[in-house]
């Protein structure tokens, strides 16, 4: 149904919808929202590549496509390489790639497919400087295979292969800072984003579109199924991840850092505000929470310093 022009003006996101309903994401899925936003930003002149992940299913089993845009399903480790190839194939045939009127080449991969098995291909893609956008939707575990830890799983989180229990066996490693690894490649544009802040996310997608070369966005996307959280709390949890500075939103543009949220001049909310909404953290002891808070503080201070020195 066409939205009246008078209303369109008041919308904070593009009105056009290129993400079809009827998909099979779980109730309250953050990843499906993320995909919806990507297509709102770029429209159908976008070639999306999705490796093995929840989005493989979300995007439609054969013969259906949830995306109103061309989509290539690929193998787990290959997102960075496939988007490199698509970009090369387009250029070889004379297409304009990236920019306002160019074809957008988008890699859409989960945290496992990015932080772990796809890290090498991601690095190659970044290093070679292809005109494409890589989006890592981060739900902090292998959700499609049934909630196993990934490199992006935070300290203290329950997963099926780091189960909490009487013997207290939890994830003991801190979340891998993929964005930092990406920035080490000194690409023109990298950012973090959250499904709780779609205006910010779409602004960043647009910036990525305008910036030549590779862009990377790490999108925080809650998974109620894997996080053992109520389906209606997905946005609230994502918002809290930002406000506790557990997952701060920032941009790295041409060597400069800029913090978007939370306000660096204010004390972030305590991490417990984020943890208490999710069942996956219920096995954490007080000491565990302190350890995680310590990590958050340390990373937040580091980011603030970077923004101060390279702002």
């Amino acid at each position, binding site marked *: *149904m066409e939205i*009246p022009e008078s209303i369109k003006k008041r919308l904070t996101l593009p009105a056009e919808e290129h993400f*079809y309903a*009827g*998909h099979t994401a779980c109730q309250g899925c953050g990843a499906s929202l993320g995909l919806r936003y990507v297509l709102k930003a770029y429209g159908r002149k976008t070639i999306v590549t999705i490796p093995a992940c929840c989005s493989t299913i979300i995007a*439609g089993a054969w013969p*259906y496509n949830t995306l109103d845009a061309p989509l290539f399903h690929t193998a787990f480790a290959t997102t960075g390489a496939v988007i490199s190839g698509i970009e090369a194939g387009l250029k070889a045939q004379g297409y304009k790639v990236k920019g306002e009127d160019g074809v957008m080449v988008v890699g859409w991969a989960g945290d496992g497919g990015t932080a772990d098995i796809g890290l090498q291909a991601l690095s190659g893609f970044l290093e070679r400087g292809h005109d494409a956008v890589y989006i890592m939707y981060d739900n902090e575990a292998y959700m499609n295979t049934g909630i196993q830890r990934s490199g992006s799983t935070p300290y203290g989180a329950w997963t099926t292969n780091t189960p909490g229990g009487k013997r207290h066996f939890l994830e003991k490693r801190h979340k891998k800072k993929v964005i930092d690894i990406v920035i080490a490649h000194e690409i023109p544009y990298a950012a973090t984003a959250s499904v709780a802040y779609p205006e910010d996310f779409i602004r960043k997608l647009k910036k990525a579109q305008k910036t030549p070369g590779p862009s990377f966005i790490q999108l925080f996307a809650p998974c109620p199924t894997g996080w053992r959280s109520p389906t209606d709390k997905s946005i609230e949890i994502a918002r809290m991840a930002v406000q506790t500075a557990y997952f701060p939103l920032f941009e790295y543009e041409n060597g400069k850092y800029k913090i978007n949220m939370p306000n660096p001049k204010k004390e972030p909310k305590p991490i417990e505000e984020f943890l208490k909404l999710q069942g996956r953290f219920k096995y954490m002891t007080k000491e565990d929470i302190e350890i995680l808070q310590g990590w958050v503080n340390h990373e937040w201070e580091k980011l603030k310093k970077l923004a101060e020195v390279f702002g």
Partner: protein
Amino acid sequence: MNTLFGEKKAEAKKIVFTSVDQYPEAPISLGTTLSNFTGDWRTFMPVVNEDKCVKCYICWKFCPEPAIYIKPDGYVAIDYDYCKGCGICANECPTNAITMEKEEK
């Protein structure tokens, strides 16, 4: 038609093949997921109270399906063919204009 996807939704149909000859040569898609009505996943259904709705469209913004659409009068409505009943809209609504109600089936 009162839905976000209008004609596309009306045209969407299930594609089922009974002979190998009907299949395409390569595994390419032939339709959209609009033929898949996920509304029956729902336990609680969101109900919009237009008296409280301030047309902020936050619910529209955060619907993961998407199943929330905007009517010509500016109020929002829910396409129950697709709404899975996650409740994000109700949780995010600043004026509590959406309530989740147990669905009679």
